């Protein structure tokens, strides 16, 4: 399988797009900043959305399960101490990556389409058989908790038959 070349993006583009989303819906909890430490690979929830067009790839948003719950709590205005349902965490993360991916798609040549978001709890690695090449990685921190955005060629939503 031929991996598509990297889309023409700048890390700052990805940061700005993500910051716009965070400012609109999550700023009440804290600002989004460049991270001092990368996200721990072993404790991650990943939300992904595929882009199909001249370039086919995936935009992923990764954070710890605790941060994901905080994001859902903030977006839904759920009070501290009240239960945040898993379905709402999945929904919130899916919507966040949908907005980030949609706005990154807007920076690419016209004609691309956006898939429906997928949310996968830990482990962080792409499913076996999904060939992928990471092109961009942005490590950010939201109120001190790590957030990662990755742009990579390959579509996590496709099942690739095992040899």
């Amino acid at each position, binding site marked *: 399988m031929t991996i598509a070349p990297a889309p023409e993006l700048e890390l700052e583009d990805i940061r700005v797009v993500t910051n*716009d989303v965070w400012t*609109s*819906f999550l700023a009440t909890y804290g600002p989004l900043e460049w991270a001092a430490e990368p996200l721990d690979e072993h404790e991650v929830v990943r939300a992904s959305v595929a882009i199909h067009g001249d370039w086919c790839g995936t935009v992923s948003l990764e954070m710890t399960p605790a941060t994901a719950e905080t994001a859902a709590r903030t977006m839904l205005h759920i009070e501290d101490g009240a239960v945040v349902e898993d379905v709402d965490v999945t*929904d919130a993360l899916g919507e966040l990556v949908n907005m980030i991916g949609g706005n990154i798609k807007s920076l690419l040549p*016209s004609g691309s389409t956006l898939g429906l978001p997928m949310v996968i709890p830990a482990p962080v690695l792409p499913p076996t058989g999904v060939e992928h090449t990471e092109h961009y990685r942005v490590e950010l921190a939201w109120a001190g908790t790590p957030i990662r955005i990755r742009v990579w060629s390959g579509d996590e939503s496709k099942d690739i038959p095992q040899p």
Partner: protein
Amino acid sequence: MKILIVDDSRVMRQIVIRTLRQAGMDGHDVVEAENGRQGLDAVAEHAPDLILSDWNMPELTGIEFLHALRGSGDETPFGFVTSEGTPEMVTRAQQGGALFVITKPFTAESFREQLDAVLGAV
């Protein structure tokens, strides 16, 4: 007035409802649907005055929903609230009969800007 909000994300539907309130558009009845197919059912049942729809949804996308409405002769004012605000998408939306496209992420100001003219005419 009655506003139909169509989005497969319950989180986003709640945010849209909250943003309408922040934009000074509270006091309206709100109906929710999870996709375009449920949206068609909701239009038949509730006869909304305004439809705010996502674009990318399972079952029936927002643009398919709009085409089905206009194809049946329904002229309910319709706007997209979507993460995909490219010029080509805006053109497709307008050609399909949508009055506006609000791009996610959005603010109360962007809602007020787009909806003031529409609500004034409803």
